């Protein structure tokens, strides 16, 4: 068996995306949902292929292409992560297609659908490049690939004023954060004369380097990445954009964009770990994010907005992992987060088309569709961190790292915020099981969604009992 090299995966996905765009352009009369199925099949085969990639750890002496691209275990893991996320997002998009169609009035019933299914593939390429990037220039380029395709996706159903507002906010603030990123890279380059992260670390180890300038650059880069991962105080855009964007795109933003942001954060912080200010700064950001995300989620009545704040809250838990610099804890948490968030969004998309996005619209769901209610129950308790779900192991590893590093403040605040989490996640459970519904008709679930949701439920519980596969995948 010949081994596949890592860059071939991205090339394959890129070719897939272009092919789908071309088919979309020239075959106007086909059912556009077929494109989504082709895309899912293509991504799935790339996902299978990714398991045969031999990881090769990056070395400081690498030259040429390999000086800005690495194929270490972490990047392979997150390439698979991005592919899996994109596959599930495409499944969600098929469910969401009627909403997209209704926002393109006129006599072309399938207008816009082709692009809607093609764009996530390009986002996926961007995410896959991003998790492999070890050079600031390459980080910048792949981050832009992700961000620009998100600009389009977020405002896709643009006739809806809320979506338009979301698109504008995302565009303006994202562009601003990109500016910070470039400025920060410039400072770091100015201080160290390097853009490769390994080289920067080497230069910083030299006592004659101007560390303050490099540190300023690092803080500016942190601002840009804080925007991506929705860390306080760069979270202002999150609730509005999450609420306004088409729901599958919200799920994608909340899982894919965040995961890639954390991988980049880990890589970028690596050279600066020797500086004591770095950890203190991350601890402060983590504390603020935890407190803000969890407290602001408490009074929410709109489920999409609740999930937006919950995404900020989870960024807080992940930042605990960053403060302790435990890559495998973060990776496990993100894997768990992928499962439970996509599960919640999958149910939300189906239910929202019948009733609405408010938590009150979920009243009596247990009567109307026991399957969807159970799926949402698993999603919510996993987000809250109940044992025998993946979310619990995620929190377990994160807090294990925090206790090992004696981060008392983070642990104490963590206890309080976990308590808050139980309240706002169980609010959804309460609506589904305690309250009685206004409507009593059954909610139909199509076969593909039922399969995807069942797979997500099974995976959430499986990882909650047997986390070893993920731990093995991350072992160096």
């Amino acid at each position, binding site marked *: 068996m010949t081994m596949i090299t890592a860059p071939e995966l991205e090339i394959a996905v890129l070719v897939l995306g272009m092919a789908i765009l071309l088919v979309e352009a020239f075959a106007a009369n086909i059912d556009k949902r077929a494109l989504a199925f082709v895309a899912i099949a293509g991504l799935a085969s790339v996902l299978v292929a990714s398991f045969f990639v031999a990881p090769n750890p990056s070395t400081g002496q690498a030259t040429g292409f390999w000086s800005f691209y690495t194929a270490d275990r972490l990047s392979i893991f997150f390439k698979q992560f991005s592919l899996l996320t994109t596959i599930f997002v495409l499944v969600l998009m098929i469910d969401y297609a009627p909403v997209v169609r209704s926002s393109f009035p006129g006599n072309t019933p399938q207008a816009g659908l082709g692009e809607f299914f093609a764009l996530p593939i390009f986002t996926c390429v961007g995410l896959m490049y991003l998790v492999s990037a070890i050079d600031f220039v390459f980080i910048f380029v792949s981050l832009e690939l992700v961000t620009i395709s998100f600009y389009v996706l977020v405002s896709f159903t643009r006739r809806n004023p809320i979506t338009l507002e979301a698109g504008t906010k995302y565009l303006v603030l994202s562009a601003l954060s990109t500016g910070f990123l470039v400025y920060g890279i410039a400072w770091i380059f100015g201080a160290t004369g390097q853009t490769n992260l390994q080289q920067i670390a080497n230069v910083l180890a030299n006592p004659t380097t101007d560390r303050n300038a490099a540190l300023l650059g690092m803080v500016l880069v942190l601002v840009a990445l804080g925007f991506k991962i929705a860390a306080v105080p760069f979270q202002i855009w999150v609730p509005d954009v999450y609420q306004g964007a088409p729901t599958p795109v919200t799920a994608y933003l909340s899982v894919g964009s965040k995961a890639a942001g954390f991988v980049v954060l880990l890589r970028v912080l690596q050279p600066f770990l020797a500086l004591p200010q770095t950890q203190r700064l991350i601890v402060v950001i983590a504390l603020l994010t935890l407190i803000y995300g969890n407290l602001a989620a408490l009074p929410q009545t709109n489920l999409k907005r609740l999930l937006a704040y919950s995404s900020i809250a989870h960024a807080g838990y992940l930042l605990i992992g960053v403060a302790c610099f435990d890559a495998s804890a973060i990776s496990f948490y993100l894997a768990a987060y992928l499962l439970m968030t996509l599960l919640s969004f999958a149910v939300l998309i189906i239910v929202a088309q019948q009733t609405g996005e408010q938590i009150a619209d979920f009243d009596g769901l247990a009567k109307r569709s026991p399957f969807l209610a159970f799926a949402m129950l698993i999603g919510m308790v996993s987000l809250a*961190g109940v044992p025998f779900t993946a979310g619990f192991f995620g929190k*377990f590893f994160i807090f294990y790292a925090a206790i090992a590093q004696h981060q008392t403040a983070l642990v104490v605040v963590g206890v309080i915020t976990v308590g808050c989490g139980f309240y706002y996640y169980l609010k959804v459970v309460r609506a589904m099981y305690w309250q009685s519904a206004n409507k009593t008709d059954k909610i139909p679930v199509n076969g593909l969604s039922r399969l995807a949701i069942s797979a997500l439920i099974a995976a959430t519980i499986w990882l909650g009992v*047997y986390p070893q596969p993920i731990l093995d995948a991350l072992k160096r």
Partner: protein
Amino acid sequence: MVLFIIFCPIVAAILIMIGAPARKTALAASVLALAAALFLLVSFDHGQRDFQHVTSFPISPEWHLSFTTGIDGLSLVMILLATIVTLAAVWFTGTIEKYENAFYACLLFISGGAIGAFASIDLFFFYAFHELALIPTFLLIGIWGSGNRVAAAWKITIYLAIGSFILLLGLILLYQSFPVPARSFDIRALKAAAGLGQISADAQRHVYLLLLIGFGILVSLFPFHTWAPEAYASAPAPAAMLHAGVLKKFGLYGLLRLAIPLLPEGTHHWANLLVVLLLGNIIYVGLVTIAQKRLDWMLGYSSVMHMGYIFLGIASATILSTTGAVVLMFAHGLSIALLFGLAGELRKQTNTLVFDELGGLGKVMPFASLAFGFGIFAAIGLPGLANFAGEIMIFFGAFKNGWEMAHFHIFQIATVLALWGVVISTVYMLRAYRKTFMGTMSERWKAIVDLRPALRVPVALVVGGLLCYGFFPQSLVQKVTPVLRTYLTGDRNLTDMEFGSHGAVSPCVTKQYRSSASTQRDGYNAWQITRR
């Protein structure tokens, strides 16, 4: 066999969720679980000191995490309690109008979680199984509760979530307190490592405090008790039976299982704090119980109060008192389940449990009032019922503790005050009985009928258990004491050869344990706690 007892209720719950006939499946599962538990009881090998019927499935070798179950005397007693109360609770559940299947599934999940926690030798699953009960409790109180069910459901859920999270932090800290090669989730491995003194005295103090707060919240230790009465008053009767009778014992079981063998220095260091808090349970909550005007609230508070005695047994850490604590855990579980079950039946007929509206019901419900009488006399601690055996062992053990000290020891003060608790519980229990079953009956209650004959079976089962172990507490003591003896005196061989050089255990604690162990051996042979 142990796996069968754990998964019998859980599989039944899943079947019921899929659509199996709810009541029949639940009854069958709980009868099977009880039968299996009785089989374990009969086939229990008294000669073996370690865990029996051990099965293990590795989960994560690098974390030394595995799904390991097994029983020793301590867990056997708890499993027996859990299976008896489960059967009684399922039996007491009548027809449920709304979501009947979900109700039975929730009950069985609570039961399976509790049994799983008692049977787990692995710390992780010990914790995780207990949490299995959290969401079912939330749903049970929220959907089928009465009174202020919304507030009660939120309060118990968030309280218990935070409590168990603190407990989780304590367990992580415990795991990390051992040097890297000794780190394991296996309680046996941890105990062996602790026996070699691999956990420092400082770490023991920190871990014990976290465990005490975590377990304390779960057991409603004063001042973390406020969730309990409200939740039990609002919960449907079967849920209150399982929660107050079985699930709450998890925290006490945890302290016995973890704190006593692994953290002797922590136990010693925080003993004074624990004594003050448990007196809060006995005296303060006892007085609050007297002031209650409703039967369900009174029962809720009384179950909080009785936790104080068990804590006293655990805090004084002598073989006699900890054995008494286990016996009382068992007995209290049965008696409070009986009382909650009967109160639930009463509420079904009267729709109220306010004392001033009740009265004279003994005339129309002779059997129920007799059974209730057994329940309250057991709860008070009358000789002949199992609670008495537990309480007296705790009082004697706690009073003996510190015998060699010159001054009046805190445990002696605590025992004296705790004895007044018996008076307090006599006051409120008898008053409740008088106001409910004695006196003149209001015209409203003429139509009330006695317990249906079918419901007399679980009542007889529980009362039988209370009487049986009230007259023969030795059969429990025989099973529990060897475990606690190895926990409190270290390994037995070590005990016989050279007791003093016992690793991390500080001389003071060792001396205390040793003295109490030896005095008990001399003075309390009547209890037959020694099996030599």
